């Protein structure tokens, strides 16, 4: 077997022969090799995470018409390492009255909930941690652990601001989980499987973003809300709840939350790329080898991450009642309608050619978008008339 055709299997076989050559039992060697694989994957992800700090700072600088870090190393590339050294040598302050175990466990769980997501990401047909047949539900379950870490951080800090920030963030995460799950069902319906590898494979002919642009959009919006990034970064607010749930964390404990957030954004960019933008498919380029395919997936993840940053640094923060109303009164019904139409068309057009499927799906999505915009227009017209009509009596009563 060629190394370039299946690098993971070849390496594992080589290690296996090496370990058994030392007289190790086969079962133990298997466990060791799996453990080694996990450690290597996690290490690679954390190293990418360090570079994400640099990317984030560079991109936000460009959005704000600045240069960004440019002093330490070429293009400021050494800057994140300087940042990390700073975080490490900072004093680790534990405030009075915190719940020590929970307080220290929260940042670990926060990063953990992101890192376990990489177990199911197919970087190439042969580079995947485990091809779970419930892959998308696993994504939701990992999000549940992230929610738990936030509420643990907020409660254990013994700080009202932290608790309020955690409440807001958790309220957002729980409510936006619903449109996210419904949006995740769209690739499931189209591919006929919840496994990530199956979904990637099924997009060989046609990326799902063309079949369901609204689904891709809903997934992106709910992913941004799940991340707690702008415009949904309600746990922050300098004049009300300061920095939210991680206000009492200093040094590397804060660093873990920050690293977790960046890696989470990158990971959701990756999921966006895999679920709606073809995964490792890119005009036949993936046939050059698994390493090229992995590079394609990482490139798409970076692109998705860039879109999330674009949203973050362009839009302003919205109010919490607007945010919840947007979710429950707009996103949830819309996602359910899109899911039903997609499932219906997919069943009706079973066996039809991919271009007919594309045309009808795309037209159906455009129709839904047009009807939605018309309904919103009508609603806002009614609301505007109400405000303009009732403005007079309110002013009068204020005069009394």
């Amino acid at each position, binding site marked *: 077997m060629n190394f370039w055709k299946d690098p993971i299997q070849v390496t594992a076989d080589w290690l296996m022969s090496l370990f058994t050559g030392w007289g190790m039992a086969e079962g133990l060697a298997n466990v060791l090799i799996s453990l080694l694989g996990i450690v290597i994957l996690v290490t690679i992800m954390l190293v990418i995470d360090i570079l994400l700090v640099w990317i984030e700072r560079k991109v936000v600088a460009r959005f704000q018409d600045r240069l960004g870090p440019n002093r330490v190393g070429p293009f400021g590339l050494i800057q994140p390492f300087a940042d990390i050294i700073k975080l490490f040598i900072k004093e680790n302050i534990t405030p009075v009255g915190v*719940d020590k175990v*929970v307080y220290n466990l929260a940042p670990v769980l926060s990063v953990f909930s992101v890192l376990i997501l990489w177990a199911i990401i197919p970087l190439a047909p042969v580079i995947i941690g485990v091809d*779970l*047949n*419930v892959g998308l*539900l*696993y994504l*939701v*379950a990992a*999000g*549940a*652990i992230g*929610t*738990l870490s936030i*509420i*643990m951080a907020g*409660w254990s800090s013994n700080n009202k601001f932290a*608790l309020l920030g955690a*409440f807001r963030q*958790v309220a957002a995460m*729980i409510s936006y*989980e619903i449109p996210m799950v419904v949006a995740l069902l769209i690739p499931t319906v189209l591919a006929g499987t*919840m496994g990530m590898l199956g979904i990637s494979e099924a997009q060989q002919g046609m990326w799902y973003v063309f079949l369901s642009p609204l689904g891709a959009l809903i997934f992106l919006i709910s992913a941004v809300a799940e991340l707690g990034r702008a415009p949904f970064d309600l746990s922050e607010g300098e004049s009300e709840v300061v920095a939210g749930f991680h206000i009492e964390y200093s040094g590397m404990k804060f660093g873990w939350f920050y690293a977790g957030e960046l890696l989470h954004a990158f990971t959701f960019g990756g999921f966006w790329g895999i679920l709606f933008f073809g995964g490792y498919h890119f005009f036949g380029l993936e046939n050059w080898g698994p390493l090229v395919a992995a590079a394609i997936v990482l490139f798409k993840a970076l692109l998705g991450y860039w879109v999330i940053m674009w949203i973050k640094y362009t839009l302003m923060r919205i*109010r919490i*009642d*607007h945010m919840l*109303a947007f979710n429950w*009164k707009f996103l949830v019904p819309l996602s359910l309608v899109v899911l039903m139409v997609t499932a219906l068309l997919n069943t009706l057009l079973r066996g039809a050619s991919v271009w007919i499927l594309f045309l009808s799906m795309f037209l159906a999505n455009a129709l839904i978008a047009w009807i939605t915009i018309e309904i919103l227009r009508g*609603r*806002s017209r*009614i*609301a505007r008339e*109400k*405000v303009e009509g009732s403005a007079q*009596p*309110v002013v009068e*009563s204020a005069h009394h």
Partner: protein
Amino acid sequence: MTILFLITAVVILASAVMVVTSRNLVHAALWLVSALFGVAVLYALLNAGFLAVVQVVIYIGAIAILFIFAVMLTRREMRDTGPGLNKNWWVSALTSILTFGGLAFLLSSWSGFSQTPAAIPSGFDAVSALGDALISPDAFVLPFEVASVLLVAALVGAVYIAFNPRAGDSPRAGDSPRAGDSPRAGDSRK
């Protein structure tokens, strides 16, 4: 496998004991999360991937978070005082021992108790088998639909309790984009 099962079992039992003995209510809820996570690991060990993931999504993602919310919002003191046992403790101890003994006796008389499970054939998709069973008329479609109706009824009931008709002018006004601040607007108009 056996080692993993033993570790998981010890973790579940220890967490369960901590749930009922912990004085701090939030700690009790977090120990409950640990116990529920252990049960998810058990499901995964039994090759029931779907159940394992659903256990995490529903019990940890929804129910445990709701517990923690409810505890935080209802109690000023998060610490329980007073003795943990009352004078009827021996009745409950007896009941639990009898229940456990009865279950163990019933299971030990079952023929499959000491058999090792047959290997699952490769290519067997448990999730699609479960999905087929849930919607096939000669399997579980009726209980499945009854459960759905029950959940919808619970949802409608929750909305009815939470919906305050005096806050807005009418349900239609409650849907409008200005509804977010309607309670305050309503107060100012009165």
